[in-house]
């Protein structure tokens, strides 16, 4: 008994000596957990598992990735991490779609509750079924001008990033389509292949296998840049319509975040590991293979990006009449 006490005391002493000189620099001394708010196998989950594995190489500890799904716009997972201490040992894996959780009543925080890190996102594009009569965006827009509001367009659920992109191209090109909501990108693309809708707006990463398989015909990227896929060059919609830059690009922002209230040391350590991982070869290769654009923003820069997204999403949802909470009451300013 006495011996054990001695051992314990010795261990405690050692630990004290080891930690006392610069307690703050010791983050992280135990494993970190990242709770992804979307399901396993989805884009946000895949990206988090990839980046966490890379960041591990630059940290002395392991990072476990778990999934905490459900709620409204991923609110379950965000509430779960919010309820954990802000010591940097619990991170949240999230995406741009989570900014709507507050106005949809999932939780009551503005998005600046988080200190985000953006790994990247895949650019949206507008595509039509392979056997569609339209082979350029101009033809499609012309047809829509001739019959406003009658050409069915798929773009995930109301208020999703893809829906906002569809709204933006409608405003920019001065047309209206008949927006048909689907539960996600995959069913929307399926509907386009089946000929149920005339066009679909989802991300390049999601459409890539279908474009390569000849099921979908890409018309235009909704980014200023063109894209190369399956031996084709997809033109940018920006070259066709001048006014587009007022509304676009609205890009996915997938990554993770720590409590904004976390200490500066925690933020610095994470940022260092994040930057080192993002600079690595593995991330670049992964992004190229999966049609993702690399982000790499963190901290205030990423917060500013999310603030724009939050304002955009929140007021669009309010306009659509699906926001249950007034964005102004949360302190979200009109864009």
């Amino acid at each position: 008994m006495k011996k054990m006490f001695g051992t314990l005391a010795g261990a405690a002493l050692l630990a004290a000596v080891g930690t006392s000189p610069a307690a703050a620099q010791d983050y992280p001394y135990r494993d970190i957990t990242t709770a992804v708010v979307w399901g396993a196998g989805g884009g946000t989950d895949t990206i988090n598992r990839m980046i966490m594995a890379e960041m591990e190489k630059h940290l002395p500890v392991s990072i476990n990735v778990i999934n905490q799904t459900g709620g409204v716009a991923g609110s379950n997972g965000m509430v779960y991490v919010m309820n954990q201490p802000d010591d940097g040992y619990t991170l949240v894996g999230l995406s741009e779609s989570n900014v709507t959780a507050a106005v949809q009543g999932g939780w009551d925080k503005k998005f600046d509750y988080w200190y985000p890190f953006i790994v990247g996102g895949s650019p949206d594009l507008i595509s039509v079924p392979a056997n569609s009569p339209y082979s350029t965006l101009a033809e499609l827009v012309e047809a829509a001008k001739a019959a406003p509001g009658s050409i069915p367009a798929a773009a995930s659920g109301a208020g999703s990033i893809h829906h906002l992109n569809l709204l933006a191209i409608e405003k920019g090109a001065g047309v209206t389509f008949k927006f048909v909501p689907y539960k996600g990108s995959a069913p929307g693309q399926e509907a386009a292949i089946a000929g149920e809708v005339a066009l679909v707006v989802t991300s390049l990463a999601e459409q890539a296998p279908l474009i390569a398989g000849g099921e979908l015909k890409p018309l235009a990227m909704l980014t200023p840049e063109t894209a190369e896929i399956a031996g084709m060059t997809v033109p940018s919609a920006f070259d066709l319509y001048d006014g587009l830059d007022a509304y676009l690009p609205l890009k996915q922002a997938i990554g993770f975040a720590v409590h904004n209230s976390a200490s500066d040391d925690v933020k610095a350590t994470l940022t260092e590991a994040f930057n080192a991982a993002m600079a690595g070869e593995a991330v670049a290769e992964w992004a190229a293979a999966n049609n993702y654009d690399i982000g790499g923003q963190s901290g205030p820069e990423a917060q500013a990006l999310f603030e724009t997204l939050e304002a955009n999403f929140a007021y669009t949802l309010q306009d659509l009449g699906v926001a249950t909470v007034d964005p102004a009451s949360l302190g979200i300013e009109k864009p």
Partner: protein
Amino acid sequence: MEFVLSQLAGFGGAFAALVVDPLTYVYLVTSVFLGITFGALPGLTATLAVTILTGFFGNKIPLDYSLIALLGAYVGAIYGGSYPSILLNIPGTAASAATAMDGHPLAKAGRGGEALGLTTTASFIGTLIGTFALLVFVWALLLVSKNIASPEKALLALFGILLSGTLMSEDLVIKGWIAGLIGLAMAMVGMDPLLSEPRYTFGWSYMMSGFQVVPVLMGAFAVPQIIEGLRHADVGKLVQFRDRIVPNLATVRRYLPTITRSGVIGTGVGALPGVGEDVAGWVSYGVGKTVSKDGKNFGKGSVEGLLSAETANNACIGGALIPLLVLGIPGSPPAAALMGAFKINNVIPGPTIDPAIILRVVAILVLASFTMFLMGLFTARVFIRILRIPQTVFLPVVMVLTTIGSFSVGGGINDLYLMLGVGFVAYFMNMLAFPIAPLVIGVILGGLFDETFRRSLFLSDGDLSVFVSRPGAAILLALNVALILSQIPFVQRAFGRLKRRTA
């Protein structure tokens, strides 16, 4: 032909990948063992085995491995039900009810070992027939399914719910339909998929994401069985047998036509949405009784009767997976549980499913049927010993497993209240002879029906003619109408008169 060959080549690749992975065997042997145990214990069904494993493994391990566990348990449980059918005259699962008809008389005549050997072989061949059909037909159907749009999907979902209600009812067909409609209503809870409006949530945020499939499955299938089992905890009298459990190859060869016919019937029944192994067993048994020269001996210990039932219920597995993988419509109640496992892994079965998953499913089924065959021949005596465990011991264990399974998928206490609530409702529905499977099929297909039906109308600006103007939709609508009309007494009498007049 070239197409079949390329499928076989793809299957070969998937099979090889599976065989060289040592982890495969860990999951496979464990899950087949568990499956047979569940099947062998009266009151525990194949659906329950797959459901509980979905809760446990669904999103904890990679989908590749959870598929091994789920399919292994599925194959094992359908086969395992034959033990108590033969030895106790109590079907271990509803799927092997027809097996008891001839299996038990055989056992009483001292041929128990032979009967078990035959069911093992029949189950093995049956599984392979179903699996082969899955490999070939899934691709043929996938080509067609690319043209299936919302109106067809809506009508197919409705057909699945109605058909399951029609065939699963014990007495009145309307009871099956009522159960299906209750499930349909439950599927309406949550965020509306089209307009993002909350429906029937009563301002409760838990309800926003709707009723989760796994707790509903657990509540509907597990809880009533546990209550029922604990109320009537009696163990039947085990028939002893002295002969060895070996597959009688001469008998198998002699009855090969019967086995092939039953395999095809089983696969076909399995492919019908929401109709499971029990119906397959009975239909095949009925057909066998009608067409066989030996028909008058069915029920008195006919080997042919035994083979008819036992081949068909295992062949049903492959059949049930065809509509699941191609259309996202489960072909049987265990397949519905399997669909839950796909969904929580974010794999949406349907036209755009990754073909590699289908090949892997086929490879797993083949390997699982081999495992089942070997286990059946060499360790059957272990499983027979399990039959002596009193239900008062294993049912509480199952209840604990069920609860953990329900909880672990979503990680919320509300899921447990949901499971218990559904469980008690399901128990009383069982007592009133309302079938429970249509309710679960309703919950699973209801969301699909609601979304696709309303989207069809949305696209057509409310014009109902979309359901007849498309050829596929028109056929499906006709099937739905025919199904309903065929159950109305007035129409049945009219048809009867018409038949007599032409005859």
